[in-house]
């Protein structure tokens, strides 16, 4: 039996934390000029956390090792970008071949909607289209296991990228030239640059958590542990794998749509395999099979990569002594060393397969203290 606080205490703590975070974000949003960097990094972190959690749903909970994330994010990003882009910018963006007439009139008919509604619709449409692709691709691909599945989905994501950049689609996706003028999070009235992505993330992640706790989630875990045993227990293998794949792709595409809104301008090259690896990295660092881990991992990796380590790129002189090695690009070396350390010493990631719990968090100092006590007592005596 796991130790924990009673439900009422947990709920109160969570509510207080949620309200605290809400007001913190609300306050930060108003500090755009001073805290721009922090805001950008929080945005990117939370967007990647959605992608990481949905990847974890597949890899950590259903045992399907898929590497198609970048492809689904590309679908989400392009659909969102195309729908949300204002009609007035179309001619400037599609400056080479123009936009296909059908698409243009579709956009014109949509332009009567207010911006927030249009963006919501755009994100959902991106998710749905990605889900349809996932359903179709899933039929042949999900029959494969482990590495083979990874390779097949990787291939799919590369195909998506190639198709988007194909000159034949110039009038729809703008081919090589990419999309521009995608509205940002705060386009609907100056606020929301943090609350919108965080709100979407909370909704998506809550859904995934509820799914994992439902009977479907238990079926996913059964499949992860042993496919044959699960089948013998009456779990429809294909149906459940397909379900996990579609839902994961849906949310991955939503995070892709948010990424498009974050970047404001996208092209197919932004969705290369490295994007998938970034997300995989977050999942592994956070802990495969831990939702909390994926979220923490997303924030940790993004903050480290984009901010905390940035000073490694700057030359530094202390008392006339030029510190060696500090130069552009060194940041990534340090980052890689960090990764190796984490993978070597925390082989299960930061969280293993545990989830966040108030009890563990609040008892953390006590546990450290207990660990110290178990050391040979002589040291403690000596300290006193």
């Amino acid at each position: 039996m796991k130790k924990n606080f009673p439900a009422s205490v947990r709920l109160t703590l969570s509510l207080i934390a949620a309200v605290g975070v809400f007001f913190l974000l609300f306050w930060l949003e108003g500090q755009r000029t001073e805290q721009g960097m922090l805001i950008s990094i929080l945005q990117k972190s939370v967007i990647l956390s959605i992608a990481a959690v949905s990847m974890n749903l597949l890899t950590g909970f259903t045992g399907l090792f898929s590497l198609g994330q970048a492809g689904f994010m590309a679908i989400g990003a392009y659909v969102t970008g195309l729908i949300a882009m204002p009609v007035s910018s179309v001619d400037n963006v599609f400056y080479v071949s123009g936009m296909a007439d059908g698409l243009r009139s579709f956009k014109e008919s949509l332009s009567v909607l207010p911006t927030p509604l249009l963006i919501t619709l755009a994100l959902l449409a991106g998710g749905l289209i990605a889900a349809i692709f996932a359903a179709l691709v899933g039929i042949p691909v999900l029959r494969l296991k482990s590495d083979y599945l990874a390779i097949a989905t990787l291939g799919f994501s590369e195909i998506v990228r190639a198709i988007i950049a194909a000159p034949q689609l110039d009038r729809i996706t703008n081919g090589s030239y990419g999309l521009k003028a995608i509205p940002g999070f705060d386009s609907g009235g100056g606020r929301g640059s943090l609350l919108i992505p965080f709100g979407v993330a909370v909704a998506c992640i809550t859904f995934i958590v509820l799914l994992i706790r439902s009977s479907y989630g238990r079926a996913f875990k059964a499949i992860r542990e042993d496919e044959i045993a699960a089948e013998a227990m009456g779990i429809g293998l294909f149906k459940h794998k397909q379900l996990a794949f579609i839902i994961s792709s849906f949310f991955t595409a939503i995070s892709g749509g948010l990424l498009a809104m974050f970047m404001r301008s996208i092209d197919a090259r932004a969705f290369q395999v490295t994007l998938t690896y970034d997300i995989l990295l977050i999942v592994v660092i956070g802990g495969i099979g831990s939702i909390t881990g994926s979220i923490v991992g997303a924030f940790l990796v993004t903050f480290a990569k984009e901010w905390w380590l940035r000073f490694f790129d700057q030359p530094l002189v202390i008392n006339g002594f030029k510190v060696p090695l500090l130069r552009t690009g060194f940041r990534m070396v340090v980052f890689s060393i960090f990764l190796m350390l984490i993978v070597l010493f925390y082989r299960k990631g930061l969280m293993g397969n545990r989830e966040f719990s108030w009890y563990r968090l609040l008892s953390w100092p006590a546990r450290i203290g207990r660990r110290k006590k178990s050391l040979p007592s002589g040291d403690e005596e000596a300290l006193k």
Partner: protein
Amino acid sequence: MKKQALVLTLLLALALLLGACGPATTTTTASPDETPAGSTAPPDSQDKATEPAPAGDKVIKIGVFQPTTGENGGGGFQELLGTRYGNEKIPTVEINGETYKIELVEVDNKSDRTEAPIAAQSLISSNVSVIIGSYGSAVSIAGGEIFKDAKVAAIAPSATNPQVTRDNDFYFRVCFLDPFQGTVMAAFAREEGAEKAAVITQLGDDYSSGLGNFFLKAFKDAGGEIVADEKFQTNQTDFKAILTNVKAAEPDVIFAPSSITTAPLLIQQARELGIEAKIMAGDTWENQSIVDNAREHAEGVSISTFFDENDVSNTAAKDFVVGFKEFLNGNPEYLSKNGGDGVAAVSALGYDAYCVAVEAIKKANSTDPVAIRDALVTLDYADGVTGAISFDENGDAKKDMAYIKVVEDGAFKFLKTVKVGD
């Protein structure tokens, strides 16, 4: 237990390292309470401007948004060198009778569109007054949205894609555009007697595809025929398949704008397949490493570019070339990364962009980014190394001349200038 001890030791060592390097962070991310106007310099600023600040402790920051790693790292660095040279030459500016030291805040956007927004944001957070960059149109476009939102003007030295400045009142550029460059190269190809042309472009790259497309249109308009239009993927290293198609089409000229890394492979493989056609490309190819890597195969490759170091008609250019060569020779790292002491056009543009930024600061007489932007709109800078610079309503430099260079005996030789009337 042993393992935990090890982890702790490592963590402590890292913490020490972080602590020791702590003060450096202030140079990149200025504390929030600093106002953009006239912030004071952190005590241990930078080693970039090698000489000490001549007067006062007022500092104005100019952001440099360049790729120094990644696909375009080489060209980005050359452009950065031009800007650094500018900073060495003009380290201060007078605002309201006070001398301000100009500090460059450099950030690497890694030639990557996904990295660009945060790199751009980090410049904004450092309270820069104006921004120079970037090499490569895609990252400029990505950063442009951030600069526009933050209302900080940016000056692109060599981003030639029309999209960079369109729809963006805060982006300016000191070079010509791809439609112009495409037209110039098409005209040049026709002058050389080419009837049939093949175009090879990189899929998913707006610079390459855009320029290829403009060439294609201009060449057709000039009465030529396009016999092949081939595309390749980013990071592709084997071009035999598309080159075989090109060979079968028997073009007189191949126009293949692409990045510096792919160029030598493409040239070499074309010649190995026995393609005799003249190979042409845009401004990116003006990089000595292409010639060095493609060796004898590169002979005869022609490109259009912004600047020629042997152009004696422009006194500003003459002074720049002499000074810049000295600057390069003074630092072995610069020299090796630049591939000798040749003066690349992008270095000249990086220098010009810096000078234009300084002029705009002088004219605005303020460190306020919006005032500097307004000053840029009407700026008329006559002493540009690459020609006089003033901006049209899009923020593009009004330039009507391109330099054609050709590779001869392993080096770029100036061939002629081409002017295109409106």
